[in-house]
């Protein structure tokens, strides 16, 4: 268990700034996910936490102690890499015990620690097997075993499930989270897969271009994205945006999109005329013949119980999640109804959300 704190941490490689000053705290025992596209700085951030990179500026605190300049070996942290590098000539027992043998632990103690780790991961029946013949999942469990055998203060994981196929990844997500709870660990986990992040995290930090765009619980980030980038990165399919050019006044509860009045959460700020984007999640869109907001159906994707219908309007493309029993014809014109209390309004130039009744209640990032 550990608390990890980053204060104004930045990292520059030559002329390229990978991380532009990030601040966050990972609480004792929490599962913290850093989510973002490739090149956003998430792996560099994790490597600095591990002591594999030295920050250009800023401080890293582990349980209150400044570890910024300490090498990886002096931090009580385990790092699990994307590609699980197991030693092919060793069996499972030797692979898991390796970190302890390197530190010259007594043989009996190693044996006990390995057995315990294997039991936690439910691979104790595989201890004497060669790693070569193991399934992808078991190999991943052995790699995790090597990380937990030292009982470190924290686990740092760099897309450990990236190499697995999608169904298996879902299963391992559940297992990893359960393991985290069972050993009462502090975990920091890096991924570009928003579903993994949503499924496992207590809190998510979304990074983009070396900066953190938002930190919050999965539900907060989903319901109240602070930026268009976050809104677009989270959700499958992501939030849809309708463009609108207008002036906005504090207290407004309706805006006009393409001439059609659309009810929105009460606005808390005045804005001069300019481009804005109304963000709506697919499950908050329904069809209503009476609505003045019209569009043409360009595709319907069957998903079993629900379907995703893509509609083109004069103000942009919008996706609706509808029951699959609803018959939808490609090419037909439909009226769209948006659930008023769940709409976000963004400044289309800066990408930042506007303050409204939806956002005032929630904690920001």
């Amino acid at each position, binding site marked *: 268990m550990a608390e990890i704190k980053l204060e104004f941490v930045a990292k520059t490689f030559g002329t390229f700034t990978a991380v532009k000053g990030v601040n966050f705290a990972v609480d004792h025992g929490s599962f913290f996910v850093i989510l973002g*596209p490739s090149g956003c700085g998430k792996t560099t951030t994790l490597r600095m936490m591990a002591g594999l990179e030295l920050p250009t500026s800023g401080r890293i605190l582990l349980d209150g102690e400044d570890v910024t300049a300490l090498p990886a070996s002096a931090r009580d942290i385990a790092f699990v890499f994307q590609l699980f590098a197991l030693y092919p000539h060793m069996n499972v027992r030797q692979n898991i015990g390796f970190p302890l043998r390197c530190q010259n632990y007594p043989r009996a103690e190693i044996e006990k620690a390995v057995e315990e780790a294997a039991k936690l991961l439910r691979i104790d029946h595989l201890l004497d097997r060669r790693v070569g013949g193991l399934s992808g999942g078991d190999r991943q469990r052995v790699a995790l075993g090597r990380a937990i055998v030292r009982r470190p203060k924290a686990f740092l994981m760099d897309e450990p499930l990236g190499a697995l*196929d*999608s*169904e298996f990844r*879902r299963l391992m997500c*559940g297992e990893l989270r359960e393991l985290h709870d069972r050993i009462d660990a502090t975990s920091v986990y890096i991924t*570009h*897969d*928003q*579903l993994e992040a*949503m*499924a496992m995290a207590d809190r998510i930090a979304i990074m983009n271009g070396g900066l953190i765009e938002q930190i919050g*619980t*999965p*539900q907060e980030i*989903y*319901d109240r994205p602070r930026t268009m980038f976050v809104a677009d990165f*989270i*959700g*499958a*399919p*992501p939030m849809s945006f309708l463009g609108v050019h207008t002036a906005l006044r504090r207290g407004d509860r309706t805006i006009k999109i393409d001439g059609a009045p659309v009810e929105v959460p009460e606005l808390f700020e005045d804005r001069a005329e300019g481009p804005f984007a109304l963000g709506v*999640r*697919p*499950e908050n869109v329904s069809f209503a013949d009476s609505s003045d907001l019209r569009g043409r159906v*360009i*595709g319907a*994707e*069957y*998903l*079993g*119980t629900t379907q*995703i219908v*893509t509609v083109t309007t004069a103000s942009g493309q919008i996706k609706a*999640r509808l029951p*699959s029993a609803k018959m939808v014809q*490609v090419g037909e014109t439909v009226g769209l109804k948006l659930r008023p209390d769940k709409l976000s309004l963004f400044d289309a130039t800066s990408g930042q959300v506007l303050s409204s009744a939806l956002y005032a209640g929630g904690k920001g990032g």
Partner: protein
Amino acid sequence: MAEISLLDVSKRFGAVGAVRELSLSIADGEFLVLLGPTGAGKTTTLRLIAGLERPDAGRVMIRGRDVTEHVPAERDVAFVFQQYSLYPHLTVYDNLAFPLRSPARRMDEGFIRRRVQQVAELLHIERKLGNRATALSGGEMQRVAIGRALVREPAVYLMDEPLSSLDAKLRAELRLELKRIQRELGTTILYVTHDQIEAMTMADRIGVMNEGRLIQLGTPRDIFERPRNAYVASRLGTPSINLIPAALLARDWLPPGAQTVGLRTEHIRISATDGPGPRARVQWVEHLGDQNHVHLNLDTHSLVTLADPAQDLKAGDQVRLEFMQPHFFDQAGDRIATDGVHA
């Protein structure tokens, strides 16, 4: 008319039966998806149609012609591989024109120009025609790879997981686009994937494969709502269907012979109220934004259900379960009707 027919086709690699007595017809203009895990025999099926593999038994027919003994070039097919194999030293234009310039086809440059332009517009890469293939993003490269197949008008396009190397967002975009293009051109596509979302959203019909066999063939709705067996039921739907041992449930509720009850996550309703029905304990709640996945323990068995984010549930809560639209499976895993006969 059937564009492609496979008649009792089998193919072994050493001791492994990769494809076993497979019979399948693909209609003109149909988008047929073969869905299955790694090793199911999907790719081998494609390669057998393309002529890249020779069947040990059975016939392959293309447009009514027996092509079993024909080499790939004599078959009227175009293949799109998982990894876009573009010529890096050529421009997008020349990459697209390449298949039309092959000595076997010899078409005049005017026709080639029109065709390349048409396909580039369809794929929204018309402004990239002068770029080198290496100067494209991953999504653009895969569009070019698909485009290189589309410039020809073969009897069938064979596609082997063409979207799997792309990131999730791009995959979702190209899924919709590929379907649109197929519909606009009326092309026949046989598409192989292990991704159930791709299969459900694009296919006119899905063929579910496992261990070299075609387990079920039908529309996405057919396969989702009337799976032939527990295996097919578990292949479609996220999270996957709950398969509950019948012994855990009240006997009077079960048709004779039922060993397993299949319940999709959205077909288990949970409530805190008193009343009939089994009880379960909440293990943990997974927040996915638009919905929550509630993990439950029914006796010793784990279940997953959906719950509205507004529903206030926490670990340890005792809840009552109500089941809607259950599937029943017999000892062999085959689905049975509520009167105990095979569905």
